């Protein structure tokens, strides 16, 4: 006998109720961070109030997922979950104004110069003394042993280290278009110094395969033409070819020095039409799009953009963009950012949680994995620690995307040698950078000679360094 319809409806409603209840409980459990396989619990569960991490506009989705994982691993109660505060506008200025106002932050992003200013103002705290506890998983001294040398140099102020890497990049490597190099019969035949590069460009120009063989980073951004000049000088002659080795970093470059040689190479490239005229007005997005057209043999750029140029949705040279390894001289300068720990009044426990968050973001998770660094590497090709290059998953993902798997090792090798321009620790550098952005193109427009430009740049650097010295 079949059940009466009313009975059947009751059963159905019961089932529906049970199902909905199950879903609701699951959702609530998920919302409150209850995981079926909880991470090992620290002795104390959670800080007295939410930790606050101030970020900019780049991939807040990834950051929030990272932070949620920290909360899960450290069993942070739901009412004290780590808060991600997204700042608008210029990140350094926005962060600095909050630090100056005593706004309660725990972790902030810091660039080299900001690290100097903020450490001197007492807004961020050195991390050398962080020791492993029940809450903090690692001694910082262990992390320091693994760190790329340039990162340690960039973020050490008065012999104290002020953070762990959020990303590091070598800005100013030679990226190659292997398709064109193959056509020219020069695939795998690379220049290993800047001097060689201009000679190679001359050879490639003679083959008349493209209109302009080289796309140099002389574009119109603060990190365009001024950085191009600095990196070519210091890669060939060391920091001492640009400025003295200690604060306030008085300039050493002058007419008749390596700086003049670099600008002569530039002028040779310009006068021989090896580079496009329009590069001087390009913004970074135009500049990236230009090399992605596949019309150039070489592009001076950050190794970071290997990911971009090998992405078929963005580039015509996907799977054909490679990089010249650092063999005879370093390539580029360190473009990087760290996670810094904000100095504020906290209990010992709260401080340890803030230190744990710092280590989780900038080093390893509770289980010894480079959780955050690996995610950034997988999603955005952001580099942090050398060991991540050997991670099988990372190698698998990027060997598929890059021109050849060896390129990953080439990038790692470049980062091992990348240089940090020491004058970036001085306040005057950004002001000089603005002047250099205006002055350097004048050698191409014919408004000034190379000697005049170098003289102006040197005088301005000297004036600014002296002003800074006097003000101190």
């Amino acid at each position, binding site marked *: 006998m079949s059940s009466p319809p009313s009975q059947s409806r009751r059963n159905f409603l019961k089932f529906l109720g049970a199902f909905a209840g199950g879903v609701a409980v699951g959702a609530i459990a998920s919302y409150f961070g209850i995981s079926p396989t909880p991470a090992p619990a620290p002795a104390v569960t959670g800080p007295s109030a939410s930790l606050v991490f101030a970020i900019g506009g780049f991939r807040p989705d990834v950051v929030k997922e990272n932070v949620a994982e920290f909360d899960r691993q450290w069993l942070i109660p739901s009412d004290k979950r780590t808060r991600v505060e997204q700042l608008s506008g*210029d990140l350094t*200025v926005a962060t*600095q104004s909050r630090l*100056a106002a005593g706004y309660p932050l725990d972790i902030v992003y810091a660039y080299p*110069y900001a690290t100097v*200013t903020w450490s001197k*103002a007492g807004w961020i705290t050195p991390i050398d003394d962080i020791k492993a506890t029940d809450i903090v998983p690692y001694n910082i001294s262990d992390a320091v042993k693994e760190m790329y040398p340039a990162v340690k140099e960039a973020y050490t102020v008065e012999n104290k280290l002020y953070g762990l890497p959020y990303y590091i990049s070598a800005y100013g490597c030679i990226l190659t278009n292997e398709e064109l190099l193959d056509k020219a019969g020069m695939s795998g035949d690379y220049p290993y110094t800047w001097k060689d590069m201009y000679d190679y460009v001359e050879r490639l120009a003679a083959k008349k395969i493209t*209109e302009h063989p080289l796309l140099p980073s002389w574009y*119109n*951004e*603060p990190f365009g033409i001024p950085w191009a000049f600095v990196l070519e000088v210091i890669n060939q002659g060391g920091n001492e070819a640009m400025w003295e080795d200690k604060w306030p970093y008085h300039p050493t470059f002058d007419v008749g020095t390596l700086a003049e040689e670099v600008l002569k190479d530039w002028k040779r490239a310009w006068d021989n039409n090896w580079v*496009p*005229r*329009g590069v*001087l*007005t390009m*913004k970074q997005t*135009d500049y990236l*799009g*230009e090399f992605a*057209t596949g*019309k150039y043999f070489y592009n001076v750029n950050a190794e970071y953009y290997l990911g971009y140029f090998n992405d078929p949705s963005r580039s015509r040279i996907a799977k054909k963009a490679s990089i010249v390894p650092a063999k005879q001289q370093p390539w580029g300068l360190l473009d990087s950012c760290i996670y810094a720990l904000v100095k504020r009044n906290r209990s010992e426990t709260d401080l340890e949680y803030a230190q744990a968050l710092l280590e989780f973001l900038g080093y390893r998770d509770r289980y010894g994995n480079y959780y955050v660094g690996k995610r950034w590497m997988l999603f955005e090709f952001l580099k942090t620690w050398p060991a991540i290059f050997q991670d099988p998953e990372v190698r698998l993902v990027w060997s598929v995307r890059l021109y050849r798997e060896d390129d990953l090792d080439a990038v790692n090798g470049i980062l091992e040698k990348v240089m940090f321009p020491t004058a970036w620790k001085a*306040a005057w550098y*950004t*002001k000089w*950078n*603005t002047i250099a952005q*205006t002055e350097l*193109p*004048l050698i*191409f*427009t014919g*408004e000034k000679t190379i000697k005049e430009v170098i003289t*102006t740049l040197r005088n301005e650097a000297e004036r600014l360094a002296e002003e*800074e010295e006097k*003000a101190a």
Partner: protein
Amino acid sequence: MAQPFPKRKLTDERFAIILLLPLIIALFALNLYPMAYSFWLSLTNTDVSRGISKFIGFINYYNLVFKDPYFWHSLRVSLQFTLEASLLAVALSLTFALILNESFKGRRIIRTIAILPWAFSTYAVASLARYLFARSYGLFSSLYVYLGLSDTPVEVVTSESAIHILALLFAWNYVPLGAFFLLAQLQIIPLDLYNQARIDGASAIRRLKVVTLPFLRRPIAIILLLFTVFSVVETTLIIGFTGGGPGKATQTLTYWAYAKTFMDYEYGYGAAISWFLILIAMALGVLYYYVLNKLKL
């Protein structure tokens, strides 16, 4: 028994003041206070990167005029851009207003389309222009090749042309505003006047001179002043399109104020440049009024 507090009558004036009070407060908070603060900043050496802020009087103004190696160049570029951009925008506004005032088929659609450039944000105009004027894939460079004017793509944006292109872009962006402002005025001119002029045998140019322009004298002065102020302070277009380059070809005073404030973090010096710009805008405004009155346009 006399009342202890005599009842005050709410006059029309008092009522109007009460109604305007929120606006006055908002005006003060949003305009006057920031202006006063920026003037105060201009009298200090505030530099966020160095963490200093001290009152220094008019030193920033002195340094700007007598010591800054980029000041005179930037001033010249600013004046060139302002004159070119504002005069071009007014001329094109007048032309479009006269065209849109005529009866022709599809006038409504054309009027709708004509207002579109104004709907673009300035940054969007700058971004669009970067693509239009790009050498490798830009429209204009491709046209050169397509029309056989060049065998290879050409650099349209050069040290010589960049400032003129910026003026053109500014005009393109703002012409709809001026055109519709003038069009509104054109529509109140009595048709009888045109008919009388025709009976008197006046040509189209003569009718424009004796009938139309006298009615447009004040509106033209207003939009000229408006465009002058807009172009003096224009920054987004320059940052977005040329970034002050190539070299320093389009480095106006506003761009220099931007660079000193937001790239070098010298807020005090940047504020001094901004106040100098306000003086220029005011001087140009007075000059325009004087010239227009003199010409009896």
